[in-house]
């Protein structure tokens, strides 16, 4: 992400699940158009405030990178803000700020997004900026710009990962969960050495391959007249030629034949346990079940793991469990931070006990209904935000082909029975099919961690 703090990179999938879920008869009315150069345009009208959200998704993320060239999708995202053929360096932000606009972008394994939130009278400015960097970025690309953003990204890595307690756990998890030839084998932020090695030519090649209208979706939500807005989109974007079709990465099938046990030392007071299971891809069968299981196990004070680990025994300071949904396969991750005097082994035993209980005995109907109620409420809350709606349209379109898939999304959950939940926990939460990472204070390897 360009500006904000960066838990987002690896929480993106989780946030996306939260932002997209729906209510009774959920709808985000929209129009969908396709320009001859392949650009997809989605428009949503809402006049609550005189503002608009202009949101562009490029269907490329760190999963499209190659080993040795990691961190590119994200480094590239940074360079997109540094000016283009007809926009001087710095003026991307100058222009937007001078009309009251904010902007940002973010990168995950599957996609890169860019957005502007601004008063509706600035529509042309946002479209000019977005079209110029899609059409003419390379005209203004220099070694200096790549070097500058390389330094910024390295500091992003230091700030959000290296200098943060437990900040390198995620990297260790993906490296060890996914095989070497899997597109999710490396962290989205990339490795320091690869960032150092990125040249202007590498960056240019990446641009030509992925930043083409036929690999982009532009969504505008807010105070617009859709017909006029479409005219302006055509005016700014039609001249940009289509590129070659983008080849989507393919993930090799893999199973963990045996559990993997890893230990990392970090500058922390408390040990933390991560249990990670490979699970079905976003919106494929099993994905909704894992969302529900995450909620039953660790959604709030009354959830099962919270009750056992924090409330009843006081063994843990906190616990989370969630499905991190992604295009080529998801991860289900349980994270528990131990309190002083407790080992991660003790904690894992309790977690395993609760998983076994869920496998043996269907949850209460009320535990399933809770998820549906929360999603309906969440959808209403998110519906207030222009960017929230633009992102929902984008996300549904990318993963399902239908921008207004909110109802269908909710129906996935309504269609589940409590038996389905137990069945999914049997199928996906097998002890042999998981990675167990212990992060322990310096010098505590072999004492507080889980070893086998």
């Amino acid at each position, binding site marked *: 992400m360009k*500006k904000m703090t*960066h838990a987002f990179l690896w929480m993106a999938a989780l946030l996306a699940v939260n932002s997209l879920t729906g*209510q009774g008869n959920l709808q985000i*009315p929209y*129009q*969908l158009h*396709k*320009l*001859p150069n392949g650009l997809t345009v989605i428009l949503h009208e809402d006049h609550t*405030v005189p*503002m608009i959200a202009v949101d562009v998704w490029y269907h490329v993320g760190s999963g499209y990178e190659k080993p040795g060239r990691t961190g590119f999708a994200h480094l590239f995202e940074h360079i997109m803000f540094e000016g283009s053929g007809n926009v001087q360096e710095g003026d991307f*932000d*100058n*222009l937007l*700020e001078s*009309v*009251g*606009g*904010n902007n940002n972008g973010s990168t995950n394994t599957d996609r890169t997004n860019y957005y502007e*939130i601004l*008063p*509706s009278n600035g*529509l*042309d*400015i946002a479209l*000019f900026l977005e*079209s110029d960097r899609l059409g*003419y970025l390379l005209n203004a690309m220099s070694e200096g710009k790549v070097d*500058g*953003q390389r*330094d*910024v990204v*390295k*500091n992003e890595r*230091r*700030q959000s990962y290296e*200098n943060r*307690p437990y900040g390198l756990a995620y990297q260790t998890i993906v490296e060890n969960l996914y095989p070497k030839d899997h597109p999710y084998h490396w962290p989205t932020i990339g490795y320091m050495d690869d960032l150092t090695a990125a040249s202007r030519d590498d960056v240019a090649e990446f641009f030509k391959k992925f930043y083409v209208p036929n690999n982009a979706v532009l969504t505008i939500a807010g105070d617009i007249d859709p017909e006029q807005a479409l005219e302006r989109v055509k005016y700014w974007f*039609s*001249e940009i030629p289509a590129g070659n079709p983008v080849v989507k990465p393919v993930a090799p099938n893999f199973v963990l034949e045996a559990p993997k046990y890893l230990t990392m030392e970090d500058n*922390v*007071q408390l040990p933390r346990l991560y249990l990670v299971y490979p699970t079905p891809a976003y919106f494929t069968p099993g994905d909704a079940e894992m969302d529900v299981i995450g909620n039953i196990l660790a*959604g*709030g*004070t*009354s*959830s099962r793991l919270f009750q056992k680990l*924090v*409330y009843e025994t006081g063994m843990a*300071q906190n616990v989370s469990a969630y499905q991190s949904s992604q295009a080529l396969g998801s991860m289900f991750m349980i994270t528990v931070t131990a*309190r002083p*005097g407790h080992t991660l082994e003790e904690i894992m035993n309790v977690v395993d006990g609760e998983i076994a209980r869920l496998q043996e005995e269907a949850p209460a109907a009320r535990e399933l*209904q809770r998820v549906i*109620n*929360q999603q*309906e*409420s969440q959808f*209403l*809350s998110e519906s*207030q935000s222009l960017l929230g709606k633009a992102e929902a349209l984008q996300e549904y379109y990318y993963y399902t082909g239908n921008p207004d898939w909110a109802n269908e999304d909710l129906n996935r959950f309504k269609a589940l029975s409590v038996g389905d939940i137990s069945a999914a926990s049997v199928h996906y939460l097998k002890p042999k099919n998981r990675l167990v990472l212990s992060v322990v204070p310096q010098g505590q390897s072999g004492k507080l961690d889980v070893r086998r």
Partner: protein
Amino acid sequence: MKISLYSSILFFALIGTLPLAAQKAERSTYPSPGALRPLQLPKVQEFRLGNGLPVYLIEKHDLPIVQMSFSFNAGSMFDPATMPGLASMTANMMNEGAGDRDALALAEEISFLGISLGAGAGRENLNVELFTPISKLREALPLLGDLILKPRFDAEELDRKRTESLVRLAQAHDEARIIASTAFNQMVYGKGHPYATPAGGTEASLKAMQVGDLQSFHREYITPANGFLVIAGDMTRAQAEAELGTLFRSWSGGMLKAKAIPDAPKPKGVQIYLIDKPDAAQSELRLGHPGVARSTPDYFPLEVMNTILGGSFTSRLNNNLREVHGYSYGAGSAFAQLKGKGLFLASSAVQSDASDKSLAEFMKELNAIKDVTAEEVGKARNYQALGFPGNFESIEGIASQVANVISYNLPDGYLNAYINELLKIQEADVERVAKTYVDPKNLVIVVVGDQAKIEPGIKALKLGKITILKKEDVLGPLPQIGE
């Protein structure tokens, strides 16, 4: 819903008939914005419940949801001197069981309904907030009533929360960000100042805290006379009066609470505090001094000045530290404004080997802000003024804007005048407040980083006296956590 898919064949037929030049957008000059569309600010209705609680209602009926935000003068600045952390613990414990429901039952019900309901304490206020779909309002209101009127404060729950807070104190020792901000507050205000006391409590205060302390804090501060309620969303005045009148009938009395905030003395010269965090990949930097109260007549010029200095992406600090030098992922500044004098703070996390150079750049920018250009002022005031309507997208945002006006006693029509007041600001106003409110000669600087690596460079800058502190000097020793 309407879907139109343009066939590419049709389009190519069209394009063939037009000269290509006509298809190109004009890019030689930047486009200008069109006419600004006005923001229609919602009307605020004011009334009181029978018990005297002031209510501010903003009706908004486009979505079936409602937000209720209670605000009490009961933040951590009201902690007794002998018991820091009491306000925060009282708020946390209001969530741990109320009325007939114990902690688990209350949490389960809130979670089942899919509503958001909870209490939390900040420095000035203790807030209770409810967000609910109208379809769940009937079930949500009794929970809200219980949480405010009948928190259980069970002793076992307090023991649980006590342990949780002690562990959190221990975890703060891992976080350079927290160490830096805590140290900065203490050094600017002095440790006993109501804006600098440890809001999360200390080992001693947490271990001493009893149910009776919470009960009396609650009794004294959570009263209709000491707070107000803002409602935004799908509710009429008649509904609000009827529903809440019944719910809060038994609630009465109390007194309006206020506390005199001692003036924080200006630092004398530049005082540098360096705290060691061995092997840190970055150094956390904090620079600043006492700032202004929210009631300052200079609010608008200060907004514009701070935007130029460090309040936006294109601000001087961010541009310098991030875009020009690449020392950091971001740098910024803020005037935290409270009822008393808040903080002026400039901050960043910078790569360790550039700690000294970054400090030098900060000093350069703090000195240079007394001169600004017309272009900078134009951009900054537009950025703040024209983006303002974005605060009114959601009912949570609307409630928060209105609550600010009430809390800080801002004048009638304040929100309506906001945009125009900002657009009036000129260079001379900005330069005047920069000279008045930013003083690089009398400054507190806190650096948390790898001392062995960064101390020599910082010393060589000769900015001022360097005091070496341990994180325990700031946070206290690691707490002993028993079972």
